[in-house]
């Protein structure tokens, strides 16, 4: 312990605590992987060990934002692989925190769809591998909404009978995207005038909104509290699983393409093992687990083709072809326009 600032008493106290709390210090595993809880098979450690003889330790983060903050404040020490959404992978790369992939060690990259190897933030998968992907749209109760709500305006200026029964995503980028797309702008729009136009539309929309909700919107559809919600495709499937009347639609103005990725950290001391893990995930059978169990599309051709047809029947958005997904716009890091976005979002959230 190199504590420099502190009195003798303080050091003694620190020593006592350290001695009695030895649990929870450095891990003995070959790999430490941070992911969202439930985003990989529960027995992943056992099956990976059986395949490679390596011990892994899976830890969880609640959100992209939190693990990013932690990686930036600590330089990423202690983690080997993290799962984050693409704009965050892009920032980690720009910060020099991630390691270029050793493709020779990841032969299963060949399983990816060509579209998944040509993503604009990382063409050719130089530093990140897509784990799941999908789009954002409207999830609704077909028994309570008349017709198909096929426009962002159906959400932002809802018909009278569903006023007060809509929710929107609270995360900055997706919230803004709904307004920007409705106005025909890009989801990465940098023109302040267009950002303000979207902001004003979203402030108006707040009046007809039940709530902003990132986590339980599908439960609100099931309980009947809400009739139409702004949703990620995969999450809408959780609603569909509970109620057959729930449907998903991508508005005609278009939408975004979201990608959750795996990256290897520069600070990792087990990079060769990390490549093995990524290769293991890309194995068709292992990658199919995510599609089957969390109902997200995976960018793995071999895995998607192995899925039972019934899955696509029950959850139609699982059948969306990669070519269609690739038409939607990737969320990119905003650079200097970030300030305008965050002010706009503060203004929306402060509006009455």
């Amino acid at each position, binding site marked *: *312990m*190199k*504590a*420099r600032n502190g009195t003798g008493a303080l050091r003694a*106290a*620190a020593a006592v*605590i*350290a001695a*009695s*709390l*030895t*649990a*929870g*210090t*450095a*891990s003995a*595993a070959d790999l*430490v992987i*941070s992911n*969202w*809880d*439930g*985003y990989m098979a529960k027995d992943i450690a056992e099956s990976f060990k059986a395949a490679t003889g390596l011990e892994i*330790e*899976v*830890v*969880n*983060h*609640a*959100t992209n934002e*939190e693990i990013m*903050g*932690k990686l930036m*404040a*600590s*330089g990423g*020490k*202690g*983690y080997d692989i993290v799962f984050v959404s693409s704009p965050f992978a892009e920032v980690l790369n720009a910060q020099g925190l991630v390691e270029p992939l050793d493709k020779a060690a990841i032969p299963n990259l060949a399983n990816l769809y060509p579209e998944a190897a040509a993503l604009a933030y990382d063409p050719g998968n130089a530093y990140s591998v897509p784990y799941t992907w999908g789009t954002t749209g409207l999830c609704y109760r077909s028994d309570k909404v008349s017709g198909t709500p096929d426009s962002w305006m159906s959400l932002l200026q809802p018909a009278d009978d569903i006023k007060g029964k809509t929710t929107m995503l609270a995360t900055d980028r997706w919230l803004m995207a709904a307004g920007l797309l409705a106005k025909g702008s890009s989801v990465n729009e940098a023109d302040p005038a267009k950002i303000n136009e979207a902001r004003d539309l979203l402030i108006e929309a707040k009046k007809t909104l039940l709530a902003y909700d990132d*986590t*339980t919107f599908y*439960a*609100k559809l*099931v*309980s009947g509290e809400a009739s139409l919600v702004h949703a990620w495709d995969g999450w809408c499937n*959780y609603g569909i699983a*509970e109620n057959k009347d729930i449907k998903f639609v991508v508005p005609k103005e278009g939408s975004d393409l979201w990608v959750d990725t795996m990256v290897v950290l520069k600070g990792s001391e087990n990079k060769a093992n990390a490549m093995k893990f990524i290769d293991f995930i890309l194995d068709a059978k292992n990658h199919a687990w995510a599609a089957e169990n*969390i109902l997200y599309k995976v960018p793995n051709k071999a895995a998607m083709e192995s899925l039972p047809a019934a899955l696509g029947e029950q959850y139609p958005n699982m059948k969306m072809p990669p070519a269609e997904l690739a038409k939607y716009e990737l969320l990119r890091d905003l650079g200097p326009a970030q300030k305008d976005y965050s002010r706009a979002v503060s203004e929306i959230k402060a509006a009455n």
Partner: protein
Amino acid sequence: MSGQATIDAMTAAPPAVGAAVPGAFRRKLPGRIVLLVVFGFLYLPIAVLVLLSFNDSGLPTSWSGFSTRWYVALAGNGDILRAAWNTLVVAVFATLISTVLGTLLALGMETRRRKSNGLEALAFAPMVIPDIVLAVALLSLFSRLNLTMGLHTIVVSHVVFDLAFVCSVVRARLKNFDYSIVEASRDLGASGWTTFWRITFPVLLPAIVAGALLAFTLSVDEFIIAFFTAGAGRSSITLPMQIYSMIRFGITPEVNALATIVMGVSATALMISQWLNKEQVR
């Protein structure tokens, strides 16, 4: 009469408000009604929480039939159980350290002849610094010092804010402290140490207990600072970290089951210890 005996007589003096006052009986009823209403409010959501631990459906907000399956799932969920244990370890250590440091700080601040605005600000600061600032700051510090992080670094971090809350409660009690009894004790020849344990400590005890309960409660529920200062490993995950990470794919009623057990066991343990105490007194 020895100084010691006098001190004993003095500390034995103040009984609980009401308990020894004649006519208190008549005034008990309003107190009972107040307690009934307030405890009703405190336990209304807890009743729902306990009920949901028996909910067959995994959705947190809709009921779909009685089931004990979440208790079975919990018994097999090593992650949650270990996280619960880690939380207890962190909260106990953080409470012990912050209660001692916070009480001493309060005594120091209240017995100074001149108030120092700097010291006041220092004691308030941990309460008003946004959690995220403290979290980022401590993680940056610990990584710069190359410390190995784990439960011990969470404890160090939790003491920062716990200590301010303990200090604040104890100071409030000290505002009414009658310093003349301390002087009297000293005049009667008792040492500083004896005076502290015989006079000051018993008077402060309710505030120290209240402060410790506060610190423990804050520490048990703290998420963001723990997440940042826990290090990367699996073995230092606390319960709030575990529960928040479940948000994306849904918090299962296992967590409700655990909370039900924690509250049930704590309440039972307290009742048993009270009962044993009474037996001993007899």
